[in-house]
């Protein structure tokens, strides 16, 4: 394609967008809304992921060793288990010392429970927190283990959240994508319809259909880009004005990685460009075959 052809196509792109201001604007707004929401959902999902990783790291279980059993030996057996990341031995005295904080001035109560002695415990970190229940169950039956204690409810609640966010997030994202694509598609159909004669005449005087189509693909790309860029700004604002302050106020709740931002922003760029080009690609498919 010659430089002149590109220039003429570019001229047509400009006049085309100007002439279809309404439809172009509608596409931009819809792409903007959809991509912003998608970006926000993704951002929250990623932030939550960090939260989860953080909370997971706090979830550990405690294995109480039967009296008279060799704690060191048991802990090295446990350490070899594939699902266990690390083990840490707490002697009975340490456990007792930990508990005694809660019984200041009432040491007799603690004594009456424990007879002044406590079994050794092993703090176990599992590799994958979602497996915590299974690991706990299998350890429970092991020789030498008296009891397994882990924050079951907390783990389950957390996974409940993640699943909900994943499910609803995916559904909402999908719906938004479909709506944005449809609006862009309709806008392009409208644009094609309004320029039907122009396209027909161009093809009759010998225009290469690929060039004619290129004009619409470029228009799509531009609409997508504009919608995408505006949504980048609004997502950025959300990031700076809402999430960042939350992070600073309650750092353990969400943890924002700057890599999150890059992931979200590049996703937004890709999605909006794909919507723009995809919609005009679909809308122009028929046109080229017809005349």
């Amino acid at each position, binding site marked *: *394609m*010659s430089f*002149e*052809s590109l220039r*003429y196509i570019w001229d047509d792109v400009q006049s085309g967008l100007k*002439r279809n201001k309404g439809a172009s604007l509608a596409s931009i707004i819809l792409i903007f809304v959809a991509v912003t929401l998608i970006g926000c959902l993704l951002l929250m999902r990623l932030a939550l992921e960090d939260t989860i990783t953080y909370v997971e790291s706090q979830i550990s279980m405690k294995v109480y060793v039967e009296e008279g059993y060799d704690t060191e030996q048991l802990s090295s057996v446990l350490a070899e288990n594939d699902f266990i990341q690390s083990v840490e031995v707490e002697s009975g005295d340490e456990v007792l010392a930990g508990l005694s904080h809660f019984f200041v001035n009432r040491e007799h109560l603690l004594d009456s429970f424990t007879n002044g002695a406590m079994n050794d415990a092993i703090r176990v970190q599992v590799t994958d927190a979602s497996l915590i229940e299974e690991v706990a169950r299998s350890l429970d039956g092991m020789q030498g283990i008296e009891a397994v204690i882990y924050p079951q409810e907390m783990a389950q609640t957390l996974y409940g959240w993640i699943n909900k966010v994943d499910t609803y997030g995916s559904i909402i994202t999908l719906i938004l994508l479909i709506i944005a694509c449809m609006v862009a598609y309709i806008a392009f159909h409208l644009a094609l319809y309004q320029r039907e*004669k*122009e396209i*027909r*005449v*161009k*093809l*009759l*005087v*010998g*225009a*290469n*259909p690929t*060039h004619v189509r290129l004009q619409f693909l470029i228009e799509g790309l531009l609409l997508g880009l504009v919608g995408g860029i505006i949504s980048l700004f609004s997502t950025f604002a959300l990031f700076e004005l809402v999430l960042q302050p939350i992070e600073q106020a309650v750092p353990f709740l969400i943890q924002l990685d700057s890599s999150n931002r890059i992931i979200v922003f590049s996703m937004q760029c890709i999605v909006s460009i794909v919507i723009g080009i995809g919609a005009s690609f679909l809308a122009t498919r028929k046109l080229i075959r017809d*005349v």
Partner: protein
Amino acid sequence: MIVLNRVSKSYGDRKVLQDVQFQLESNEFAFLKGKSGSGKSTLIKLLYREIERDSGDILIDGQEIGQMKKYELRRKMGVVFQSFELLERKTVLENVMLAGKVLGKKQTEIENEAVRLLTRVGLAGHLHHFPKQLSGGQQQRTAVVRALLNKPKLILADEPTGNLDRETSLEILTLLKELHEEEGVAMLVITHSEQLIQQMNEKSWVIEGGKVYEL
């Protein structure tokens, strides 16, 4: 220039052209006439492939047109329509230049040629007018210039005078004839006006009952 060999075309059950034989030499001028609905437009549309024939061969410059890309075929010819097919939002000059732009030619080159031809057909004073501001005859002259812009070796005109009064029709046909001689271009002109054909005194063909005969 053009050779049709046993070309047939039907729309559903309606057989419009049957085993048509036709030819037009390089640099030849010919009329094609026939009653309304006899298949004149169908024949011309087959030539620039707005529609496709059912069977037969169509050669242009010895080359089977089915083997060319549509746009390559259309670049070999200029087409003039009864309804002018000018774009309302473009000026006379822009309408003409469109034909050069889609070929990716240089702007100045296109513009010079467009102005030359528009001046030739008496539209020098209307370059920046819009089609609506012109008379029917002026619009058709614009369309003729657009067809000639890329210096094709062939012009197809489908009832170019169909929307014009008698006097203007004669003027357009005379112009086509003159341009045919000046620019050295073959022309196939469809018209259903017997009177005009007689006045022009040119070679002509007629479509009847799905066949094309030389008169």
